[in-house]
């Protein structure tokens, strides 16, 4: 395969289990039915195969990866392969001693999420009393001399507090602050009416982040990920389908993104059944939207088709019912009215949040 399609990053979703219940979780809404997690030897084999294929970055995530008891051998295995390993975690449940063990085995970066800047607000969104513990984990990371990324998912209820979030990240000496607006898939789509902010809120927050980025240049990296629903064009979802990323779900499905297995027309192979390189290069799930051949108009003749690669396939499916449609967030898409309608619906709504639970999927 041409070098245009080379995986640089493996996103290892080790489990869908998590003590938190955030209503914008990116895990599939039927997560509770997907229980058969890969074992340690299989993950270690996957890491070797991924590195051989070109992967240099490893994100250990979930669910909550800390609920697995084999993070230690996985971190050690990744380090032996010279992978840059990032632990993406809520910080629950963790002890300082375990974190020290991660460092000793070669963990490169710790990304801790908080949900807001006060215990009340953060714990309410997480559905779990966790804020103080998260701050403590952040302190441990810095005390142990490890780089700290602080991640906060933004939505209508907390977007106005971006300046306080930046101040908190500075107090915590975070090396990196990721302010990521909710992407409306998975649980966030269930809760879209309650989460979608106004454009004015978004612009104020974006300006605050831009000011801080200039002020903290060289000291703290600040990322501000805008929500899809406010752009003129779609984002370059996953840098294009099957171009740069491999996601492996807890049960071993090899995916181009963390939600691809919610697309019913596609079949994805399991890393238990076939070598990763083969799955990457020719499995139907990966080839379906790779390159440009699948594109409908207006994408097919659009000059941006090699910039955004047609946007997000999961968003196209979940909003229009057709995974091969132009991403509706694009202002050129024939279905863009769906986005305007979503804004209007959210503006008129005072819906309350529905927490991630094992049961909602069955109820829908």
């Amino acid at each position, binding site marked *: 395969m041409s*070098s245009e399609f*080379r995986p*640089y*990053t493996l996103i290892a979703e080790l489990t869908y289990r998590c003590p938190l219940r955030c209503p914008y979780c990116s895990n599939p809404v039927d997560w509770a039915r997907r229980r058969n997690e890969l074992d340690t030897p299989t993950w270690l084999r996957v890491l070797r195969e991924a590195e051989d294929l*070109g992967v*240099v*970055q490893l*994100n250990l995530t979930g669910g909550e990866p800390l609920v697995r008891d084999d993070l230690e051998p996985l971190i050690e295995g990744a380090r032996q392969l*010279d992978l*840059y390993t*990032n632990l993406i975690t809520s910080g629950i449940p963790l002890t300082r001693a375990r974190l020290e063990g991660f460092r000793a085995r070669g963990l*490169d*970066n710790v*990304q801790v999420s908080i949900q807001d800047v006060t215990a009340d607000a953060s714990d309410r969104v997480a559905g779990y009393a966790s804020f103080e513990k998260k701050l403590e984990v952040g302190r441990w990371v810095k005390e142990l*001399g*490890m*780089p700290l*990324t602080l991640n906060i998912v933004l939505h209508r209820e907390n977007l106005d507090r971006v300046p306080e979030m930046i101040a908190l990240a500075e107090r915590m000496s975070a*090396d*990196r602050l990721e302010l990521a607006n909710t992407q409306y898939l998975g649980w966030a789509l269930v809760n879209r009416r309650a989460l979608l902010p106004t454009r004015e809120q978004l612009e104020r927050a974006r300006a605050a982040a831009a000011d801080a980025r200039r002020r903290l*240049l*060289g*000291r*703290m*990296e600040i990322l501000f990920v805008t929500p899809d629903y406010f752009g003129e064009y779609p984002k370059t979802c996953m840098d294009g389908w099957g171009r740069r990323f491999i996601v492996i779900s807890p049960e071993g499905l090899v995916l181009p993104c963390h939600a691809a297995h919610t697309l019913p027309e596609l079949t994805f192979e399991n890393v238990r059944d076939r070598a990763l390189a083969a799955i990457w290069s020719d499995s139907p799930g990966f080839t379906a939207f790779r390159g440009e051949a699948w594109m409908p108009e207006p994408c097919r003749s659009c000059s941006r088709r090699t910039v955004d690669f047609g946007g997000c396939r999961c968003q196209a499916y979940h909003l229009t019912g057709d995974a091969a449609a132009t991403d509706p967030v694009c202002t050129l898409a024939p279905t863009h009215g769906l986005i305007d309608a979503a804004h209007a619906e959210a503006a008129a709504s005072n819906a309350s949040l529905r927490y991630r639970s094992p049961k909602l999927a069955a109820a829908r």
Partner: protein
Amino acid sequence: MPDAISLESRPRLAAKVRLRYDRKAERYMLLYPEKGLVLNPTAADVAQLCTGEHTVGAIVAQLAAKYGQDVPTVEREVMNFLVALTERGLVQEAP
């Protein structure tokens, strides 16, 4: 703003950064959270010398000798590269 880099600075890679040889592209790359930067051979030489032991002046002298180029040209290139890396938080001055 980060402190200005001078010829007396002793740059080192930030804690979040790892230098790795990429055998696919046959290039060194700097890896940091969720990103990577592919380096050309000269940039890789500079990055390898960012250990906190060498001054910028010493790095420039070493590269000028290695590539047989004049010092002012090399100095300009090394400085530009180090300033860019410092602004991204990838290089810091050793204490």
